[in-house]
């Protein structure tokens, strides 16, 4: 049906030709198109938290025998825009003892990386912004930078409680990055590529016709990797049951106590975009990305699965109490990490027995020729690397 992916590609190719006719060199045309694609993607991503905040309030309300926002707009639909406008006009207070520059920088460091991480994520056929070869590694690298944002927020606010909250938050995020990365290693090993697009397309096949070959359906290794990645992602986004940094009851909402107005809004925006990013990763890695029956366009399949995982995140938040800090760290280092390592061993065992004859390391030729789109310089992708 109305697949948006290919339409966009044609649109961008026409735009590039139009730019070249205007006299721009091919390189400048490509940069211009990339700029256009980025603004398009960021505008979509900015719209997501608007919806997610409303969804969280409504879902939590239904789970708690109440109605949630009903007054602003029909069924409270205009609640989030109303909140954003309110926060826009709120006075932006910087505490007296705080380091002003750092106070502002912390917000940028916490919010900006999350948008960059969306580049390699494949929304549907022919849709990823950049068909990045080091897809998943790039995402982890850039999302690591937001930990700095929390530390800077903790230190920049100048008060003892937010400093404690910042330290705890950073410690939690750094220690949960490891099981998160290790839980992805089986997927990368299995499809022998870091590129999210190849991983997604490789899961398109079917077991004897109907059963989709998503990674989660591989008995044993699939489920373990899925669970470890999901738990680590919940911890990475600082949501209950891992929200020690802003544990309201103890540290009076941790590192973003001293933020108000639009800066406070950005912290929340970053959290919700981060939740959406983690769900998108879960969908791409374990649920076959945009793979789905033909009656729905591929990007709609992708969006549907991601929102399902987002619902899981919301569901966790309103049912689980909070873990104590040391139990949380102990859970990470003594349960999640060993489980992820064991899973890697299992995957290698599975791969060995699956193709005993073929040498485990795929030869160069076996690099899947990823779909061709985007600018001319991507043409180099198909050429196998001889060195």
């Amino acid at each position, binding site marked *: 049906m109305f697949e948006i992916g290919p339409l966009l590609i044609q649109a961008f190719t026409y735009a590039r030709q139009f730019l070249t006719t205007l006299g721009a060199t091919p390189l400048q045309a490509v940069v211009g198109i990339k700029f256009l694609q980025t603004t398009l993607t960021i505008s979509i991503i900015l719209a997501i938290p608007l919806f997610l905040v409303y969804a969280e309030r409504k879902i*939590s309300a239904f789970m708690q*025998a109440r109605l949630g926002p009903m007054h602003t707009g029909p069924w409270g639909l205009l609640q989030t825009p109303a909140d954003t406008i309110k926060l826009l006009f709120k006075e932006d207070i910087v505490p007296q003892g705080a380091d002003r520059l750092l106070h502002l920088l912390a917000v940028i460091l916490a919010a900006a990386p999350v948008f960059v991480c969306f580049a390699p994520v494949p929304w549907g056929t022919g849709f990823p912004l950049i068909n990045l070869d080091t897809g998943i590694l790039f995402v982890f690298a850039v999302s690591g930078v937001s930990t700095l944002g929390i530390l800077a927020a903790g230190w920049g606010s100048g008060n003892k409680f937010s400093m404690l909250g910042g330290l705890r938050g950073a410690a939690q995020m750094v220690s949960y990055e490891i099981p998160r990365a290790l839980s992805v290693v089986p997927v990368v090993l299995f499809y022998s590529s870091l590129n999210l697009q190849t991983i997604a397309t490789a899961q398109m096949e079917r077991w004897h016709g109907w059963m989709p070959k998503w990674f989660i359906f591989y008995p044993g290794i699939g489920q373990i990797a899925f669970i470890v990645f999901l738990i680590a992602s919940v911890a990475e986004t600082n949501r209950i*049951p891992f929200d020690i940094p802003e544990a309201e009851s103890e540290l009076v909402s941790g590192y973003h106590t001293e933020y108000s107005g639009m800066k406070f809004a950005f912290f929340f925006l970053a959290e919700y975009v981060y939740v959406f990013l983690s769900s998108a990763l879960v969908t791409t890695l374990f649920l076959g990305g945009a793979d789905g029956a033909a009656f729905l366009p591929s990007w709609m399949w992708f969006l549907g699965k991601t929102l399902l995982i987002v619902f899981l995140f919301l569901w966790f938040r309103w049912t689980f*109490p*909070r873990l104590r800090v040391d*139990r949380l760290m102990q859970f990470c280092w003594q349960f999640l990490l060993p489980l992820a390592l064991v899973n890697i061993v299992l995957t290698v065992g599975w791969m060995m027995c699956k193709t005993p004859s073929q040498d485990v390391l795929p030869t160069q030729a076996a690099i899947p020729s990823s779909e061709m789109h985007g600018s001319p310089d991507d043409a180099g992708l198909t050429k196998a690397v001889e060195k």
Partner: protein
Amino acid sequence: MIDPPLLNKAVVPASALDVFPTQAPEKGMFISLGPHHPSTHGVLRVAITTEGEIVTGAQPDIGYLHRATEKLAEKRTYPQIIVLTDRLDYLAAMTNNWSYCLAVEKMLNVAIPERADYLRMIVGELQRIASHCVFIGTYGIDIGAFTPFFYSFGRERERILDLFEELCGARLTYNYVRIGGVMADAPDGWLDKVKVFVKEMYAAADEYDKLLTYNPIFTDRTQGIGIMTSEVAKAWGVTGPNLRASGERADVRIDDPYGLYPRVKFDIPIGKNGDCWERYKCRVDEVRESLKIIEQALAQIQPGETMGKVAKYFRVPPGEGYGHLEAPRGDLGFYIISDGSPSPYRFHIRAPSFINLQVLQQLLKGWKVADVIAILGSIDIVLGEVDR
């Protein structure tokens, strides 16, 4: 480093506790929790000295809600004081009134009609359930689970308050129990509504168990934390569910029976090692016991008089009297000395929350900062009763 279990076993002599930590110790940090802290259940300040994450000293600082109830009582006649007792433990006003009326009736030596006593018992147990519902909700929030609050506080307690509103017109400060009986008979159909509520409340209690009591993260946060042995509890005068959770079978309804409790059969939930989880579990089980009591009371109640022969304006013969009962938070008693005039000469309130709170000085030492909130919440205090 103080290792918590050892310290809580032996009763630390009061003199060994630190006086008042006001400045940061040389190594650790000084945290003043409250009085505007979201989880100290009202206006209570706890000054805590910590060494890293471990609490080395704690001294609750109270008095922010002191209204000199005992001084006011000396200027009021006996019936007027009932209104004062409503505001002591504002989450359990019925049992406050009842306890005060018990004390005065003991001094007046007046007989209570049977129907009034049954109504008092039904209303007292309903109040216990409502108070425990508040505890279950707020304790969930302390540990981080937001949803149980909307079920226990938002749904169950509201229904009890509606029942009370229908009975005596008020939702918080009832002064329904009067000296010599109760204000008015239950409106017709009210007892059936209570019967319906009791049936549904059983299901709600099981729901709390599923949602919170056996939730692995909740048990991980509360089991084995804030252990209070029964010696420590008795030494510090702790009463109510906190003492029973430490394995001590102490309940005023059994030890010093009042009203018509000898006519109803119910058992006392007892804990074993007195940690936060047991204190929480005892209260959830007590809700079920109260439901049993109400059922039996509903079965036995007969129509009849609801007000004994007490003059509107009476004097109490000179002498002293002490009446007490099992309030939701512990042994609530009123010690009254009368000099024959219409108002008492001396009026002292034995407030369970005030005495239970003392144990924090010893109980908090050696646990982590994250546990302070769990332990403080498990003691379940109400500041109106602490500060009087």
